[in-house]
């Protein structure tokens, strides 16, 4: 897969692209592809500054069910601004991924563990692999920073998100009963970027 900032990939028509930590109920049927929307250029960039925070919060609050305070957004975005990737179309924010990278030392070896905290794409811009691209770009940055595995949680009912991550090679690592505040169960997903036996 080749992705760059202006890619508009339309072959995947299955991603719901509103994931993590939990997403609001998605309609059973996806809205039809809007050819006008698809023809517009999508620009990807990392978080620049506080002036973008409100837009990110609005987007997440619209599509994620979990209520996050401003402190949660700041925790992630201000600590790892380069891991907050945004997708815009004609200057309008249409998708964002918010991530974390923890550096730790295990058995005298430096290890980076990535975490995808939030991902959302505006409904009318879905089915264009924007979510996949956002995740891909954030993981690429994590790899540059020494990341060895990436984890996230997704609601068991969020089939679109599960498919998106599954297609990227994430596997379900653990089942979490009533994980979210709305009492919905979750799976913890993991993507392994290094061999388990490397050491």
């Amino acid at each position, binding site marked *: 897969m080749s992705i760059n900032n202006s890619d508009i990939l339309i072959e995947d028509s299955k991603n719901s692209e509103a994931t993590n930590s939990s997403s609001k109920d998605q309609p059973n049927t996806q809205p039809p592809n809007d050819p006008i929307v698809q023809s517009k250029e999508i620009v990807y960039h990392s978080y620049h500054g506080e002036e973008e925070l409100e837009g990110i919060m609005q987007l997440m609050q619209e599509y994620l069910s979990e209520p996050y305070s401003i402190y949660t957004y700041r925790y992630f975005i201000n600590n790892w601004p380069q891991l907050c990737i945004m997708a815009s179309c004609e200057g309008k924010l249409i998708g964002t991924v918010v991530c974390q990278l923890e550096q730790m030392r295990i058995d005298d070896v430096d290890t980076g563990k990535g975490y995808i905290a939030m991902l959302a794409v505006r409904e009318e811009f879905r089915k264009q692999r924007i979510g996949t691209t956002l995740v891909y770009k954030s993981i690429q940055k994590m790899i540059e920073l020494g990341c060895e595995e990436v984890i996230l949680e997704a609601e068991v009912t969020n089939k679109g998100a599960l498919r998106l991550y599954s297609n990227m*090679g994430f596997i379900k690592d*653990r089942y979490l009963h009533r994980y979210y*505040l709305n009492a919905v169960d979750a799976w913890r997903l993991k993507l392994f970027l290094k061999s388990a036996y490397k050491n």
Partner: protein
Amino acid sequence: MALRNTTNQSKELELTPKTTQESQCNPNIKTATIPDQAIAPSIQDIFSDYENITEAIRTACIELDLGEMIHVDSFTLLDGMSAIELGDAKTDEKCTQKEAILESGIREDMSDGEVIAVLDQLLCCLATWLEGNTLVQTVFSFYYTVNSDDIQNRIVRCFTRTLVKIMFSFKEAVHRAGVQEEEDAMDLSFNYSFLEDIQPNAIKEELANTIEWYCSNKNLSPANLMDDLTLEESLVLRLRLIQVLYSVTCLLDMFPDLSFMETAYSHITDAIKLIAFISKTHCYASEVTQWSVYGFGSSDLTLLPPNPRKTSLLPFNESAVCLKYSLEDIASVISILRHDNFRAIYQATTSFSKDPIEKFRPNVLARSYLKSMICYREHLFGNFQFDIWLKDEIKFFCNPPSLNSTSKMSAKPQTRKLVNLFLTHVQDTVIEVMHYLCLSRARQYTTLQQTIFQSLGQMLADADSFDVQLHKIGEQFSPQEAHTGYYVSWVLYHLLQIMTDYLQLGFEYDLYSLFEYHYIFWYLEYLLGCRQSCGEMIQNLLAATSEAVGKKGKGSGAKKRNKKDLETKVQAFDSERIFLNILRLINIGYLRAIEGLKLANKIICPEFDLGKKEYCYEQRFLPFSYLSTPSPLLYEKYVKNSDIDQLNPEDRDKMLQSSSKHFQVAKTGLDNIDVKSPEQEKILKVVKMNIVTMNLAASGHKMNNTNPPQFDFSISKQFPIIRLF
């Protein structure tokens, strides 16, 4: 400006309009820290535990540019997640808290229908708590559980007070066991009073008097359980239920005195019958449109951590089923207590954990009682003769010369010392295994990953070491007393079962992606083969010991008994070996099916631009790397022996036919088992359906599209029905 609650964990101060926070990744960070002395003392009477931080912020802001932010290093993600914006309904749940309307409350002159409605709602609260919710949001969301003296109605008061006492026992049982889910806080008491100052006898007396008073007022004779109960009789049934439940909790609290457990069992049976009749008579409950009128829904959310999980009370019908299941499962726990040997206890505990009829059964309360009882004070049932139980178990299992009283080596002090040392070594791991069986199935999976396999690996190494030492002693007497691999076989046999269970747990929680099924079934097939070999090894060991013993006790009655015992055990291992062979055939059937479906492009592996299939494989089986035996199968071996990506596309139908044939041979094997277990019946059903599906697939049915197959585990949790679309 935000007010800082000094009792809250949140430490960040919000500034507007632009902020930047200290960053590990951003070198241009500026951090300003508020000196502690800059924080002004409290000035607001209304918020006695709050501090006015206006001046502190102003002072700190002087050195900040626009876009910078005050940040305390210790402000963690948890703090961020826990922080609330006061008055914002989305994060500040508590600002939406409703006050109970207590204008009418629980009046003395409530109709019997109203009383039934209130009592049934309390049962719903109990059932919802059992589902893993907090007391604040369930039983104590009823205003009068905290203020039972305010209840004017005698029946409701008596019922409520008894329920509070029951809740105390249940809560303590959950707390002691520690098997609740990590996110649940069922055992927190929030400083509520549980009527500790009222003695159990006073509650029992109050209940008995209330029932007698009501029956005499209504001219009721002791009601029999029958289908046409009146409204009044139905009300008495509810009092009897709470009476019986309270007796049960008092009796269970008498553990480890086992003499009370049978009475508890009998009361539980009564309670289950009562619940059935209470379900039928719920129709007598008055219709309630606003529960707050009776004091329900008045949870004090300020007691909960920020952003509490939302809780809705279970409907009555579901609550009745939940309570029935709980009681049935507690009765099962008592049944386990009846066993007097380790083997039976272990098997019953494994079944209790593995074979729930419904999802989430057994629930946390039953698992808590099980854990508290079987592992009481880190000994089985608190039995301080645990080592003797284990010795009996190993002796029964493989009859090693070191434990056989007729062998010369068993009498040697050196042997006894080694045996006792081995038993002491393994006790902790055995208890650890019993603990994990009391967890929910989902947590069993992670516990196995994190600790159990590591402990079992050590136990296996210990067993091997003791076998070697004992072998040296045995060789001094005669070749027949060679102590080759007895303890290792015992550990390995159980270890292999747990390994199989671990992989199958992944199916239960749908952890495996479709592309992973191939290597999971491949590894399962390997483990089943190891189990067969282990069984054969144990048969040989049994035969060797029997032969050695037989030579010494010629003509004696003991010889005949030993021979008969041996035959029974060998027969059991034979049956198991045959069944394991059937399971291996089924696994191969799945392997060929997946290979055929992969060639038909119905199963597609992700592109893996990031990561690799190899890494997924390694992580799935990483917990097995703690074990020297069975040898872990590395990815290279999987690729070399059976990699799905090396197949010839022309072999598609051949693979599907082969799958069908393997299922067919497995079916024949299952048909030949005279008395099938329920699990074997289920597997047979699955196998029959898979034979048909694979035959159809081999003839091209549904093979002209790339729709992925479905692996349906609705009949068997381990062996799916393959469905094509």
